[in-house]
């Protein structure tokens, strides 16, 4: 069996997961992971499935696209690469970077430029920009893995400098403090 990554994007409505997974079942695929999220009214789902040897990613993609056409969904399929080719979280510490401050263009790009420059990997990101004065209405929360070998002081300094240029209040904290306070 090969493994494939299937990404599905489109306006949210009931039945998207059911439609995608029933097709995968009919094609004899075994689902290993699913994650979905809804941003405003848009659905985005990512599926990892093992697929039969005689099923290519192109055929899988065209089958899904055809069957999901009535739901107006975009489908993308690619082979799953081995883990060692991607970012390795071993040797990293999990941190949470939070920014609070008024919305303007370039905030995410500005912060992630520094994060990327230091080889820090974003594992989860939530950004909410509703405008107005309520600080919790304009927040970016980055869950990141910071490699142990990088100089955290330089990363911190650069992030604080960039945040201040962007008018943001930034916090960089090890994940454990949030776990300790909020989880038993």
């Amino acid at each position, binding site marked *: 069996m090969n493994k494939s990554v299937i990404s599905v994007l489109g306006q949210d409505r009931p039945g998207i997961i059911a439609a995608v997974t029933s097709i995968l079942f009919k094609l004899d695929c075994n689902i290993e992971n699913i994650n979905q999220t809804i941003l405003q009214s848009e659905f985005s789902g990512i599926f990892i499935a093992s697929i039969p040897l005689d099923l290519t990613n192109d055929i899988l993609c065209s089958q899904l696209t055809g069957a999901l056409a009535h739901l107006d969904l975009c489908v993308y399929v690619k082979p799953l690469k081995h883990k060692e080719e991607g970012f390795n979280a071993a040797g990293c510490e999990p941190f*949470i970077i*939070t920014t*609070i401050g008024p919305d303007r263009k370039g905030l995410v790009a500005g912060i992630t430029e520094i994060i990327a420059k230091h080889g820090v990997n974003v594992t*989860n990101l*939530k950004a*909410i920009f509703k405008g107005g004065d309520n600080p*919790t209405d304009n*927040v970016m*929360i980055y*869950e990141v893995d910071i490699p142990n070998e990088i100089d955290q002081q330089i990363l*911190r300094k650069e992030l604080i400098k960039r945040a201040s240029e962007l008018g943001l*209040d930034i*916090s*960089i*904290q*090890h*994940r*454990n*403090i*949030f*776990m*300790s*306070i*909020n989880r038993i």
Partner: protein
Amino acid sequence: MLSENEIISTLEMLKNEHLDVRTVTLGINLFDCVSHDLNTLKKNIHNKIIKVAGNLVNVCDRIGEKYGIPVVNKRISVSPAAVFGAPFSTSQFVEIAIALNLAATEANVDFIGGFTALVEKGISKGDRALIEAIPEALTETDRVCSSINVASSRAGINMDAVLIMGKIIKKAAQLTSDKDGLACAKLCVFANIPQDIPFMAGAYLGIGEAEAVINVGVSGPGVVKKAIDRAIASDPDIDLGRIAELIKRTSYKVTRIGELIGREVADHLKIRFGVVDLSLAPTPNVGDSVGEIFQSLGLLSIGVPGSTAALALLNNAVKTGGAFASSHVGGLSGAFIPVSEDLNISESVRAGYLSLEKLEALTSVCSVGLDMVAIPGNTSEDTIAAIIADEMAIGVINKKTTAARLIPVPGKKAGESAYFGGLLGKATIMHVNNADGSNRFIRFGGLIPAPIQNLTN
């Protein structure tokens, strides 16, 4: 994956509600420093403190930064000086205090505790020499803190020691009369002193403790107040049972932070982690006050009728939440009501809502005792000793810790202000009944026997 609410609410506590680690206190056993020669003892003390604590401040700052939570104070507590310095005279004990001060300065900690004697049942030669040295020792040094345990529920109250402490407090105030009696702010008289308090001025490393130990004092009166305010705003009909539950949950969170930081500091220094002291310790800042919690609970001010019940609720809920959060809770663990260190409590005294008598009543249901209480400069030794005796009695009979940190402000009267600066704050001097009078009862001396352990009503 953490929820947005978990992250934002934690940040809120840290940024806007004054949640911090109030102190990381490194306890160091100094018994192996003993010598018959004073200079050798002083050298040994210095070497050991620097060896064990030299890196404390750096490690605390680094870990504080890692978690985004400030470790406000880094402190050292040592074995009771009256024991390791037992052969020495009063003037030599002053030199020991100066040596401790020097080591504390070099280690860059703000206070060092342990200029301590345990005299609840009797006073030994070393104890007496140390006690007599306190006024000069606390005047000559700026970082040394002293504590004297004069009573316990097992031994009773050593009234001879209580009377001596009346005299010592008076003298310490006089020697620092240019600073409103500041030396007394570094001196606590205790009943049932715990061996592992991280907070000053009562911190010392108990005789039964390890070679070195990290104890942590957390704080969070602002967090508790904001939690109560939010709950009442969202449900004005909330009852006290649910408010107690809310305080309990908040205390849980605060304690978990203390344990996280304490364990990591201990790991880095390769020292045993001791306890989290989950006291609500205020500072003289708005929003970081235990007094403000009383107002959130619907009282006009701390000190008005209802205050003792409110404090009982608060103190018990804090302990309950903390005990669930950590199996290593110790020290004083409860709500502090230090008059000068809490802007709101200090203001209640000025406005006439809080008297010394009501304060004493409050101490029967919370930790510590008569803490940072400024009294008139003409208060007699007898009356100071009598106030201490009353406070000790509350601790001894109720099997709890109580303490007295009284400052008879030289040359000032009730109603005037005393300034101690920094975390020690400022206070309105409280009225004391029979302030300058004598007190025959105190002068009988001897030991008030320990309470029986049954018939507990």
